[in-house]
């Protein structure tokens, strides 16, 4: 294999093993880049390839390990003359303030395709119990749920059942929430400003006399959404519909971000953005799924690391949690106050809220309640349809 083929194979590996969006154009650019910087200096080639292949900070994080594994590990392929610095891939350095990318934190020993294999084999919860895989999964799920030692659970799956209703609800919410005026001008008959371009166009009919004044007004702007999904052992069990809804929201609008949290917080927006994610599991979430519940600490992490970028007076924060917090309640209170002050609304979705006789009595729930704009159930797609209807009705009335 010559260098050209090597680079093509590297592109394929990045795409297939590491989830990069690189294609033929990237191979071509990489080859030209290699011509420019030369292939003898490893650091230069690495920088150049990084610039060509990566498109997001998450990809930058994963790139070094992939580069090392491909070009520096002995594999019996014609290699460019690179100094072999590592005998095996180094885990990528964690220097970003962003949520860590799921794959970069996988321990070295684990096979990287384990999660994908699970996707295909892992049956849905509703499979009949005579299926041997289902039994195994149930056992694993049980262990994840009840054993204190198992800190991390299986990554959750986006079910396809009832997804259509979720999409309808998400569309309605994205289209119907109008929380602020945009700075963009759009044509409107009772607008405040004269639109000279269109007025002049229209004056052609009247021999250049601007008889009919066209007007513009500030457009109404849609809300930005943040979904924070509690994946702790107690809440993860009912999180299916919320995940579906978050997936639908992310698919419907670019101004949506989604996070999962349990012991740690992790951003899942990019995983949910993949169109074919429905019916598959999310990538490994590590400590952010299936562990203990530290709502306050995780929300504080969110505010600190992503607040500046995502919170604004037009952000609607959706928190999915059963409110069973095992952490510091003072911290939860402080963080909820800040979240409320820096957003348009905080909607709390509690899987148990729809149950008869429900009272918000769980410690975390009681602490958070004063700062919550509205509390809704989140058990199935009907709940979310009702949520979308209620929220869009509220804003319609306010106008």
């Amino acid at each position, binding site marked *: 294999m010559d260098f050209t083929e090597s680079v093509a194979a590297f592109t394929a590996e990045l795409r297939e093993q590491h989830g990069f969006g690189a294609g033929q154009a990237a191979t071509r650019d990489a080859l030209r880049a290699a011509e420019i910087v030369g292939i003898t200096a490893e650091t230069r080639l690495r920088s150049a390839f990084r610039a060509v292949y990566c*498109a997001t900070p998450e990809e930058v994080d994963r790139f070094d390990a992939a580069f090392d594994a491909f070009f520096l590990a002995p594999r019996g392929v014609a290699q460019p003359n690179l100094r072999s610095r590592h005998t095996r891939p180094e885990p990528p350095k964690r220097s970003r303030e962003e949520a860590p990318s799921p794959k970069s934190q996988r321990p070295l020993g684990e096979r990287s395709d384990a999660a994908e294999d699970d996707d295909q084999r892992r049956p849905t919860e509703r499979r009949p119990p005579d299926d041997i895989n289902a039994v195994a999964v149930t056992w694993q799920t049980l262990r994840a749920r009840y054993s204190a030692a198992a800190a991390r659970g299986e990554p959750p799956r986006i079910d396809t059942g009832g997804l259509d209703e979720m999409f309808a609800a998400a569309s309605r919410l994205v289209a119907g929430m109008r929380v602020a005026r945009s700075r963009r001008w759009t044509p409107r008959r009772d607008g405040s400003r004269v639109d000279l371009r269109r007025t002049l166009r229209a004056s052609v009919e009247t021999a250049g006399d601007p008889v009919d004044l066209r007007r513009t007004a500030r457009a109404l702007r849609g809300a930005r959404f943040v979904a924070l999904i509690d994946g702790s052992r107690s809440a993860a069990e009912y999180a299916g519909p919320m995940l579906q809804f978050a997936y639908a929201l992310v698919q419907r609008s670019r101004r949506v971000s989604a996070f999962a949290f349990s012991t740690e917080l992790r951003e899942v927006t990019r995983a949910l953005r993949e169109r074919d994610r429905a019916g598959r599991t999310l990538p490994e979430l590590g400590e952010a799924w299936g562990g203990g519940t530290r709502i306050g600490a995780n929300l504080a992490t969110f505010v600190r690391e992503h607040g500046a970028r995502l919170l604004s007076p037009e952000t609607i924060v959706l928190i999915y949690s059963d409110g069973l917090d095992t952490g510091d309640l003072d911290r939860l209170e402080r963080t909820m106050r800040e979240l409320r002050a820096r957003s348009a609304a905080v909607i709390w979705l509690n899987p148990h809220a729809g149950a008869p006789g429900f009272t918000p009595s769980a410690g975390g729930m009681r602490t958070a309640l004063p700062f919550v704009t509205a509390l809704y159930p989140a058990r199935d797609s009907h709940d979310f349809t009702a949520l979308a209807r209620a929220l869009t009705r509220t804003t319609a009335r306010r106008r």
Partner: protein
Amino acid sequence: MTDAELRERFARHGYVANDDFATGIELMLALEKPLLIEGPAGVGKTESAKALAEVLGTRLIRLQCYEGLDAASALYEWNYPKQLLRIRLTEESGASAEAREAEIFSEPFLLKRPLLEAITQERAPVLLIDELDRADEAFEAFLLELLGEFQVTIPELGTIRARERPAVVITSNRTRELSDALRRRCLYLWLDYPTRDEELAILRARLPGIDGRLAEQIARFMEFLRAQPFQKVPGVAESLDWALALMRLHREAIDERTLEQTTGTILKVREDWELLRSQRSRYEPLLNGTSDVADTVPPPDYGLGTVRAQRG
């Protein structure tokens, strides 16, 4: 230009370029692709484009993106009041309708906005599209089209094609995800906070008069600060401000009192001040002992609470 030359030239203009940056710029110029720079606020993303323009000895054309930016304010607009006026003035001139129309839709009536400006230069400029994440998706799609062809069609004038392809630098603070299509079209560079050595080099390059020991101390302190979970982590601009403040105050070293007096140049959120104060035992080794200046200066209050104590 090789990367060594590039770095040397950047250094001459007071910009410290690291490996990744120099390689990115080199490739961007060679492959004629836009360079997308992301990174935390205050690491010098915008500054890098300005430095690039100086290095290339060409003009910097900047398009600052904002919410609601549309093609008309980014590309071109006809000067309607001037057109209307001209129509009135030439009403009695007896010229044919076609001639009058051609006149009002000619270049003198065209208001060039940054993007059109950038593709009509004789010499390839540096086009900086700053904070693209603030503009909306519709504008991003429009920009994608323009970056692909570098030509603009104005119905009344015809198609204008770039004489020289501008070197395009796009920056984003990630308040919104940019589309994959745009990302794939660009070379990507993640600009992180500088390392201690880089910070030191930046301080020396931007403030040639700075005392070596003070610069070293600042760089070390910034390294400590950036590891703290502040709401607003101080960037390079802050460390330069701080260094300048210390120089103006004629301090040769940072001690507790000086730090208190100048915290406002590095930390801009009250909670961050409190956090810093609570970390005192951890940063104390980085400080010098109390200087003798301390006693002659009254305690600062910053409006945060010592006022009452002074009155009482």
